[in-house]
């Protein structure tokens, strides 16, 4: 079975048990790592990993090979773990943070205004933060991951992990906004 690609194994999976075994065993470690990094608790991670494979097993007949198997399985693992974390109502550990940009006086309609503001703020992040800072901020605030999970998912090796990047990102953003205010 090892000679077959993932997609060939999927095609064979309808009537070949060993194809499914080979396919899923190729990804056991990857799913285990992913679940552990999100959950940071090996028992919870083990439950999550089983549920991921269970979902994959249930959905496999509908997989038509339009995406790579790794993409498909990653999406299942990602959605399942994120939903599990969010259902546990884990929220960013510090208070809700607001970005306040100087008012440019532009007004269109409300919906466009919101979209425009969000785009400007994303641009600010893109311009002033390094890649790791952006990733940390996105996972912590956007995906509501704990700092511990963010540290683990991104493989951060520094002593204070994601927290340090949050601190530096906020400092940079405050500085950038202050400079924008000074220019207006």
């Amino acid at each position, binding site marked *: 079975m090892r000679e077959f690609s993932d997609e060939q194994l999927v095609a064979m999976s*309808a*009537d070949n*048990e060993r194809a499914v*075994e080979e396919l899923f*065993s190729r990804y*056991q*470690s990857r799913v285990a*790592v*992913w679940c*552990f*990094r999100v959950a940071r608790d*090996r028992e919870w*991670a*083990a439950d999550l*990993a*089983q549920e991921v*494979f*269970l979902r994959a*097993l*249930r959905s*496999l*007949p*509908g*997989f*038509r090979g*339009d*995406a790579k198997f*790794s*993409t*498909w399985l*990653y*999406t299942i*693992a990602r959605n*399942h773990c994120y*939903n599990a974390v*969010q*259902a546990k109502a884990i929220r960013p550990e510090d208070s*809700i*943070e*607001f*970005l*306040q940009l100087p*008012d440019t006086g532009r007004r269109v309609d409300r919906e466009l205004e919101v*979209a425009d503001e*969000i*785009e400007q703020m994303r641009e600010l*992040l*893109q311009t002033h*933060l390094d*890649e790791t800072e*952006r*990733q940390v*901020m*996105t996972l912590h*605030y*956007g*995906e509501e991951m704990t700092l511990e999970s963010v540290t*683990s*998912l*991104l493989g951060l090796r520094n002593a204070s992990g994601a927290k340090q990047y949050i601190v530096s990102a906020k400092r940079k953003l405050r500085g950038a906004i202050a400079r924008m205010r000074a220019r207006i």
Partner: protein
Amino acid sequence: MSRDLREVLRRGEDCPAPEVLIETMEHGADVPGTDRTKIAAHVEKCPVCQTELSLYRGFEAGEVQADEREAVDHIVGVLRGRAPGPARLPEQKPSRSWWSGVAEWLTPGRMGGFAVAAAALLLTVGVGLQWQARRGASEPVGEADVTRSAVIRGVIPQGEVAEFPAEFRWDAVPGAAAYTVTLSEVDRNVIFHNTFTTPVLEVPVNVRRLVVPGKTVLLQIQATDREGREIAQSGTTRVSVRAEQAQPK
């Protein structure tokens, strides 16, 4: 102007679904119904999508850090070993597909720890499980069938539900390469819209939170082929959460 960071850094309506993003940017695929150039331009300035791609690369690399090794070995051990014996699995009728038997058995009400563990058993090497052939079940049908079946069927759940579903499923459409799903309120205010390559919608928790008990949500699905041509539609499926039930947490 002031924005909550969570609002700025949450997946936006303009962000492609993760599978579309990954297929386009990592595997160079042309996903029907999407514009590669537009996606690439979006990624350039979207920290959410950049982060998604980075995480996928980490998943794909599968590298285990030294301090993760013990936990990962344990989890893999659980995946391979923690399971009851095959005798406790649901009885299969010889004429039924193995997959459909498992899927039917795993209804939400029976998704307890045992069910999960038992199902995990099905995945592991060396399990003595009765295997029922499923020949023909997933074979694509001819073009004539596609033409006849322009309606997406089997959308579940629908109607009145105790809580807003975490997942919608529908029958796969032969020849479909992508499904575009829209959830909207009765006044057509869209609360979710995205494209997927499989006939499953896992509803994000933040979308589920938007659904007020007693209010009806409309689900519409459009199936497209590899060239992006529409080949089937679901019509409008209505789902509402019973008013007396609490919203999902």
